């Protein structure tokens, strides 16, 4: 319904301030909650600005159909879906090609961090629901999913942390919002296992010079290191709460 006149759009003003008041190297406000759902074995909600991603994890559990099981490692399944009301124009509930591609790259971003060989013939399932989309949903999804995996007690080499960098004119920017994603010149989402330094998701659309790409990738990694600290804090908070519950006698074995 709302049309944006591209010619009048100023993504970075003369003082270097972006549409939401940030500077080029600033992240959006980040809010992380781990273990907010009861039925799921692991869950996390990550908000990056207005983007909200909810992730849940089940498993490791028996693989069906059985012939799909891998005899020497667990299989990771990931599904990324957007709520119909997460975007300006209502999205149809059926998964789009975009949602299926993102499911695949998110799975492949998480896979290298998980000790899949600990659980042969099983499946670990990750479901991500985007409650609100305002740019950077795949990076918020990965941040939430890796926390949900940790919350479910799945052994990992480390958390997976993600953020996008990009280009607006001749300026690199960190953590693109929706307007910058749509009307900016390049979008470079990056996921990394900070504990090992491995980059596990790397995509780009738009164009960047060789030099600018290097700067953008460095900027994304700087952002990742900040988010990683916040993820660890959120996870620690979750387990401290759990410890208090156990010591307080509130804890009882779950139903399933």
């Amino acid at each position: 319904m709302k049309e944006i006149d591209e010619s009048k759009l100023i993504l970075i003003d003369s003082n270097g301030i972006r549409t939401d008041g940030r500077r080029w190297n600033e992240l959006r406000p980040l809010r992380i909650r781990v273990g907010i759902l009861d039925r799921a074995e692991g869950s996390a909600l990550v908000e990056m600005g207005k983007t909200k991603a909810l992730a849940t994890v089940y498993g490791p559990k028996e693989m069906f159909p059985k012939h799909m099981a891998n005899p020497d490692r667990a299989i990771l399944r990931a599904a990324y879906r957007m709520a119909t009301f997460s975007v300006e124009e209502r999205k149809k509930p059926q998964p789009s090609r975009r949602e299926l591609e993102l499911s695949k790259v998110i799975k492949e971003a998480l896979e290298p961090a998980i000790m899949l060989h600990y659980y042969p013939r099983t499946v670990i399932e990750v479901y991500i629901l985007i409650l609100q989309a305002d740019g950077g949903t795949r990076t918020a999804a990965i941040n939430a999913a890796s926390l949900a995996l940790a919350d479910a007690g799945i052994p990992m080499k480390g958390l997976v942390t993600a953020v996008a960098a990009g280009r607006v004119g001749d300026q690199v920017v960190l953590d693109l919002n929706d307007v910058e994603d749509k009307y900016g010149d390049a979008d470079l989402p990056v996921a990394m296992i900070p504990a090992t330094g491995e980059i596990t998701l790397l995509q780009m659309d738009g164009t960047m010079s060789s030099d600018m790409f290097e700067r953008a990738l460095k900027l994304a990694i700087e952002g990742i290191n900040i988010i990683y600290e916040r993820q660890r804090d959120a996870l620690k908070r979750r387990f401290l709460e759990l410890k208090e519950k156990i010591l307080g006698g509130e804890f009882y074995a779950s139903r399933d």
Partner: protein
Amino acid sequence: MLPEIKRSILSSLEKSTMYSLLKDGKRIDGRNFYDIRSIKILPSIIEKAEGSALVYLGNTKVLAGVKVSLARPFEDMPNQGLFVTGAELTPVASPAFELGPPSYFSIELARVVDRAIRSSEMIDLEKLVIIPGEIVWMINIDIYPLDDDGNLIDASMLAVIAALMTTEIPKAEITDLEKGKVNVIKDEKRPLPLVDLPISFTFAKIGDYILLDPSSTEENIMQNRLTIAINNKGEICSIQKGEGGGFKFNEVIIAKNIAIEKVNEVRKLVVNQLAKNPRGPNAWEYI
């Protein structure tokens, strides 16, 4: 064939404990037979939706969102706006839900909620007409259960009425009546015209006992369930019997009477929570 919902398997120990508690008039979570779990409503939680609410019914959590768009009315109802209700049961809420085509239960859930809204005439559809026979507002209601600890029907019903109560529709200016063109002014909004507030009550039958607001443990061993929705006038505005077993006449009457007895209390609670609870994006702090 659409997929059916899988149920968890309960141990016979848990089952027999539940039955012996029921004999003493108690439920496994300590409630009496006709007690509803605590209700918490966080309104307007999705900024990009025209209306939304996250509802807790005990540990069950349901998010409902409303999107409005312009549409052509049905040929036979040129003077009425439209509304459509959908439910997405994703594995986020329960390992029993699978991705893929909608299950029978997700369709039943959406239709039961839809019927209560339609029969109670909750939304004043005539006020959603912009050009009769040409352009009307269409209200899309989508239900996303986030955590299934039983009784998704009542939790969804609460989430939907709360989301509708927070819904605002933009102003539509007619720019060309002949060609049926309108200009939508997003910054000028008015509340969605509502004239009723239906509340649903779902009962589970376990053995010879009728329980209001079943938890997922109770749903695992229930023989059947009955949903009764009541409108503002205290009339019954929707009924749905579900699952394989049957109800006796007396049991239906008991359920109906309990629903009518409880409706004002629940409706008052919804209105109060919508008035006083934190709303908007910051309400996520209260999850």
